[in-house]
């Protein structure tokens, strides 16, 4: 009996739940030594949460349809978005607003989408404008990212495709397919598993028998790491390493960001049906914003006054976005037809005319 192969999965953390560094200051990655930048990251995490709270309120008052909250994922998402370059491409699933706001998706677009209007997917600002739209069929976005990475490789562009997928999504065909293709073809892909412990009501423990989700990368021969997903320094650092590797032509990586879904799965879900409050309280104690704030306060670059000012600024921003959303007129009935093909086929043109005439009868 000899050994054919050996593997280790590393775990990365810088900031513990209390906001204390678990490494020496000098061992921090460069970006983390720049406290101004850390404040920027903190501010985006906070604005993401303000945005999220506002969304839920909108849903509760009937102004949105179902909405998927990102509460508790702010470090993971902002860590991902902030590490990427503009020319990279992002393929999200449906709750990674922290990454998306960083890349120029506007809150009003998020509201429009969850408000039942396709225009929410028509991101207006770069670089989000060249990112993928939200992807509801679980894990499919992983292959879209892999295909994008293949395009970059074929065209010899120094760009990286990044996808995020949940702990649940890491069970689905598309995730395995994406990392396997990326490994076989050395594609510039970074696949981040945002392990928030739950796939709706299905806990991580019955999703898979694997000890870590990071180790799924071994099946594809890829470098992989497990990070504290509530520690933005760890997420951002792992992302930077993986992005650099990909950009240099050294191929794909997987990152497992361990976090917790503090809210319901979506506003249509009631998590109390399937998990105890103790577990949630325990997780809440480890949430990402509190610890980063404690750290920044310990560094004297943040305080209550700044917090209040920023919260107020975020509130204004979101109010403005909400208003823009609420003022948006419903699409005309013709919008059902006009984007099905680049050019409207004749048969469809007849159906479109029929829909218009029904519409005018109603009015």
């Amino acid at each position, binding site marked *: 009996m000899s050994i054919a192969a050996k593997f280790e999965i590393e775990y990365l953390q810088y900031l513990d739940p209390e906001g204390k560094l678990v490494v020496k200051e000098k061992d921090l990655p460069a970006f983390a030594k720049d406290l101004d930048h850390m404040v920027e990251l903190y501010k985006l995490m906070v604005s993401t949460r303000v945005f999220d709270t506002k969304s839920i309120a909108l849903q509760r008052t009937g102004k949105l*349809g179902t909405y998927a909250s990102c509460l508790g994922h702010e470090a993971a998402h902002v860590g991902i978005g902030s590490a990427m370059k503009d020319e990279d491409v992002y393929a999200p699933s449906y709750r990674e607003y922290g990454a998306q706001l960083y890349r120029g998706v506007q809150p009003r677009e998020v509201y429009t989408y969850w408000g039942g209007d396709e225009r929410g997917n028509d991101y207006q600002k770069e670089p989000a404008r060249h990112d993928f739209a939200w992807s*509801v069929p679980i894990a499919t976005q992983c292959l879209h990212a892999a295909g994008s990475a293949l395009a970059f490789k074929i065209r010899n562009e120094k760009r990286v495709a990044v996808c995020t997928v949940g702990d649940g*999504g890491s*069970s689905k065909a598309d995730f395995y397919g994406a990392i396997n293709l990326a490994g076989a073809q050395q594609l510039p892909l970074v696949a981040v598993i945002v392990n928030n412990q739950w796939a709706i009501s299905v806990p991580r423990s019955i999703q898979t028998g694997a000890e870590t989700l990071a180790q799924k990368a071994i099946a594809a021969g890829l470098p992989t790491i497990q990070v504290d997903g509530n520690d933005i320094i760890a997420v951002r650092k792992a992302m930077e390493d993986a992005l650099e590797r990909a950009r240099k032509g050294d191929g794909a990586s997987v990152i497992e960001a361990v976090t917790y879904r503090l809210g319901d799965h979506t506003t249509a879900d009631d998590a109390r049906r399937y998990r105890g409050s103790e577990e949630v309280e325990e997780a809440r104690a480890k949430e990402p914003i509190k610890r980063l704030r404690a750290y920044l306060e310990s560094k004297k670059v943040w305080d209550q006054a700044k917090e209040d000012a920023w919260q107020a600024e975020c509130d204004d921003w979101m109010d403005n976005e909400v208003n823009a959303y609420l003022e948006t007129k419903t699409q005309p009935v013709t919008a059902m037809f006009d984007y*099905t093909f680049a050019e409207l086929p004749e048969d469809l043109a007849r159906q479109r005319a029929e829909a218009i005439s029904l519409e005018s009868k109603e009015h």
Partner: protein
Amino acid sequence: MAQITLIEAVTQALAYEMAHDDSVVVLGEDVGVNGGVFRATQGLQEKFGPLRVLDTPLDETTIAGATVGLAVQGMKPVAEAQFEGFIYPMMEHINCHAARMRNRTRGRLSVPAVFRAPWGGGIRAPEHHSEANEHLFTNVPGLRVVLPSSPARAYGLLLAAIRDPDPVIFLEPKRIYRQYKEEVPDDGEALPLDVCFVLRDGTDVTLVTWGAQVKETLEAADELAEEGISAEVIDVATLTPLDFDTIAESVSKTGRCVIVHEAPKTAGFGAEIAARLVEECLFDLLAPVQRVTGYDTHIPLFQLEMKYLPSVERIVAAAKKTLAVS
């Protein structure tokens, strides 16, 4: 006897059959403690344990393939696709294996499985949660495709589906899951899977439909009645194998037919019924058959979806159109 909704009838049928047949198991995403995202499996895991009501990993390929394996071993699995829009990865196992295992092995092995899925639009749900994709399966030999449209039919047809020795696709019109209640005795009585149900007798025009559109179609029949037009309403219920005789009989009586379904028009199952009419009832037809359907576009996000789905108004107009010809 308690009055129950369509979704409660689904639960009642599952509970009945699980209690009476040990080989019945339920599997899918969130079907366990959570009782399914629509509560179709509510309470079942408590009653029958986590092995007979199994939360699977999040992979529809896995659910479908494991279902085939379970069924070949003599279990009667009832697998859930959380929404019909997520059923695609199940198709290889459904079409290549479930539907043809008996044929492939000359009867040696078979797949007595049910694949359930909430179906259709109209609940203001997110993208991919409103698909009406029955046509994915109506062209597949070896499958039965069933769509109940009332609590009683949901109960009786689901029991029949589970007991059927061959695979059944059971699509549940989620828009009417909780639309109304009726008395459904929990007596274990199945309904036949080889007949259409005539829900209303009429003489002037035949309205043929299935699933959630039964509601609008019956309302349309009411409206037509007010104008003195007598519409017969048929709920196809089991699309394939099709009981065309019931439809043919009605249309030879009325001479007119409107087919209503929410899936896109082109190559929807309405086309098959229209085709049978032109093949077998041509000279009974007094007017062109009309199809009132979803458009040949993807069902829009919810702001526009009610403009996509067939309305009472569209059905009434189509019926009158058939009557305008003479």
